[in-house]
């Protein structure tokens, strides 16, 4: 590859249109009479819309009032944001007891703490951090959010999650400052040098075991009050449903996609029919089926609450959509990669996890994020079957006595909320894509 050095100074200046804003406008907005006309018409339309919105939503709007009547008294044709503000807590948290909101906030904070190492430089073993997020964080937050008595299983998983969170955080801190992983760093702490890889592992696992026991003893001493799922709601509920959906849809999708490509006919036919069945039915139907049909299949006396049913339905539905995305991604990987892996002795699962998936996932990112965005938006359908997610909450404002008939403002607020979340997600996916595609090309 030849390296072409840019010459220091080009002798001919680039044409005006390429550099100055005036030049750009001339070229793109006023190139012909028609174009000029269109430009002015568009500008005028934008002006009217923005001005209308500004006057209604900001200039004439009412921010502080106790009821819709009061809003009207203050300003006849301005927005009544006071209603939205009064309901803000409910929009975010539903009917979750106000004294316990810290649990939700802590849960969200812990998620960020857990995932932060993924974005930090020099941290090793990010794959494991990602995996633990998917498999252990749900137990930690699940207990925080719902509380009540911990069964033995919950106690074990909760302990595992806490140990893992602590381990991750320490590991990441060490990584950022020294570039080592936690197991590599351990012997230095005791001033030992040149240890065998085996000893390293032993030390590391001893440490884990000891902290596991310690944390287990500690967690037996406390608990949080039970909060029934019926009190969950608002944006919190939306994020719980779509978060679980997102976290499980990708692994589920990968398994289904591999099943569909499997050489074993039974596995292939089962995966294919499962995928096609769910993909040919609208989500709302799946939701209704889940809440009315699941109970019929369950053994007597075994009750699944509606939230769990909904979450299972959302997970299956999205796993099927992602399965097709994954299948598309797998098809972009040339056969030679499988053969290369075969010749260095890698088995099926090793080939898939070290060679094929890492390459395929890179191609799939835009589609995966696109799926996640539509999952987040589709989750609002649960308000139809009686869960009070963010949309349900926004709509119940208009039924609250002081704010009777207040439809427009809550819905606009909801639109802004969704736009912000989805926009950030799609921007981030662009960034991720660009980063991954240039990562090793210096």
């Amino acid at each position: 590859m030849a390296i072409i050095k840019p010459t220091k100074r080009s002798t001919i200046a680039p044409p005006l249109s390429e550099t100055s804003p005036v030049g750009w406008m001339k070229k793109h907005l006023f190139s012909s009479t028609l174009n000029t006309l269109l430009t002015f018409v568009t500008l005028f339309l934008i002006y009217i819309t923005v001005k209308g919105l500004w006057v209604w939503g900001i200039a004439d709007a009412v921010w502080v009032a106790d009821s819709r009547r009061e809003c009207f008294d203050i300003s006849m044709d301005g927005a009544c944001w006071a209603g939205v503000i009064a309901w803000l807590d409910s929009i975010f948290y539903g009917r979750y007891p106000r004294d316990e909101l810290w649990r939700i906030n802590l849960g969200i904070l812990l998620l960020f703490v857990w995932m932060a190492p993924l974005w930090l430089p020099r941290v090793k073993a990010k794959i494991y951090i990602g995996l633990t997020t998917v498999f252990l964080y749900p137990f930690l937050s699940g207990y925080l959010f719902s509380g009540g008595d911990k069964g033995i299983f919950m106690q074990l998983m909760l302990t595992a999650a806490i140990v893992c969170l602590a381990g991750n955080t320490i590991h990441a801190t060490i990584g950022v400052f020294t570039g080592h992983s936690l197991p590599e760093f351990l012997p230095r702490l005791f001033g030992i040098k040149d240890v065998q890889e085996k000893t390293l592992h032993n030390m590391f696992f001893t440490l884990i075991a000891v902290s596991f026991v310690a944390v287990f003893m500690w967690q037996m001493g406390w608990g949080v009050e039970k909060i029934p799922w019926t009190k969950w709601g608002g944006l919190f509920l939306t994020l719980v449903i779509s978060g679980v959906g997102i976290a499980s849809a990708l692994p589920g999708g990968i398994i289904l996609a591999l099943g569909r490509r499997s050489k074993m006919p039974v596995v292939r036919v089962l995966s294919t029919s499962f995928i096609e069945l769910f993909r040919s039915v609208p989500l709302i139907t799946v939701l209704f089926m889940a809440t009315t049909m699941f109970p019929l299949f369950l053994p007597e006396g075994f009750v699944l609450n509606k939230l769990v049913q909904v979450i299972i339905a959302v997970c299956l539905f999205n796993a099927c959509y992602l399965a097709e995305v994954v299948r598309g991604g797998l098809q972009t990987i040339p056969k030679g990669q499988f053969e290369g892996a075969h010749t260095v002795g890698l088995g099926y699962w090793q080939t898939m996890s070290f060679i094929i998936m890492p390459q395929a996932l890179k191609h799939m990112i835009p589609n995966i994020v696109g799926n996640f965005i539509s999952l987040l938006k589709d989750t609002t359908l649960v308000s139809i079957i009686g869960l009070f997610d963010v949309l349900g909450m926004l709509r119940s404002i208009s039924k609250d006595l002081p704010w009777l008939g207040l439809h427009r403002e809550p819905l606009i607020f909801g639109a802004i909320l969704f736009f912000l979340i989805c926009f950030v997600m799609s921007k981030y996916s662009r960034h991720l894509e660009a980063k991954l595609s240039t990562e090793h090309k210096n």
Partner: protein
Amino acid sequence: MTAAKTQNTREQLTSAASTEVIIEFNRVNKWYGDFHVLKDIDLTVHQGERIVVCGPSGSGKSTLIRCINKLEEHQKGSIVVDGITLNKNLKNIDHIRTEVGMVFQNFNLFPHLTILENLTLGPKWARKMTKADAQANAMVYLERVKISEQADKFPDQLSGGQQQRVAIARSLCMNPKIMLFDEPTSALDPEMIKEVLDVMIELADTGMTMIVVTHEMGFAKTIADRVIFMDHGNIVEENEPGKFFNNPRHERTKLFLSQIL
């Protein structure tokens, strides 16, 4: 005169392999759908033997060697590699995979991994080496193919010739008993062919069992113990290089040689 002659035969004896059979094809047949690619192939390869396979495009050369490491499955006849009969038994496949290395026309390196990672992945997972051992092992082989200074680069930052040498090193890292080469130089620019052939000649000197599909006849003359000519799924002619090139027995071989030499 006679002394020179015995000297000559002795040299051939040392270069020719031990008597231990490492690959044995017995009336092997293979079809792709209705298409009969391999027809009653009989072939015996001894340990340490270097075999060059040539023949026109579509004659089944690739298919033949890909059957040896189970990249392709044969339908009739038997193939025994390193004492193991190839069949559907998964354990056997695992074993064969680690004992037989293969180098492809278009390298098939893993583009998302560095050169070093490309070389350590197999030993770590299939040979259960520790990371440090696998890395040390990889550096030895990178040294041998003369690109140890590129260890931390990614495959697409190397030239074709360098990539192919990495691919050879990657296979050698598994410490295989047999190396298969499927047209290792035909995707390369002419000026890079030599560097790859040099590495292969050095490998031949170490006594590795090699089966090479190639049209580089100079190379065949230098290292081959035997040259095999294939056409339409048959092994048409099989001989030591001197006789093969100087007086081929079959018309089809003559025609083929006249086209490529």
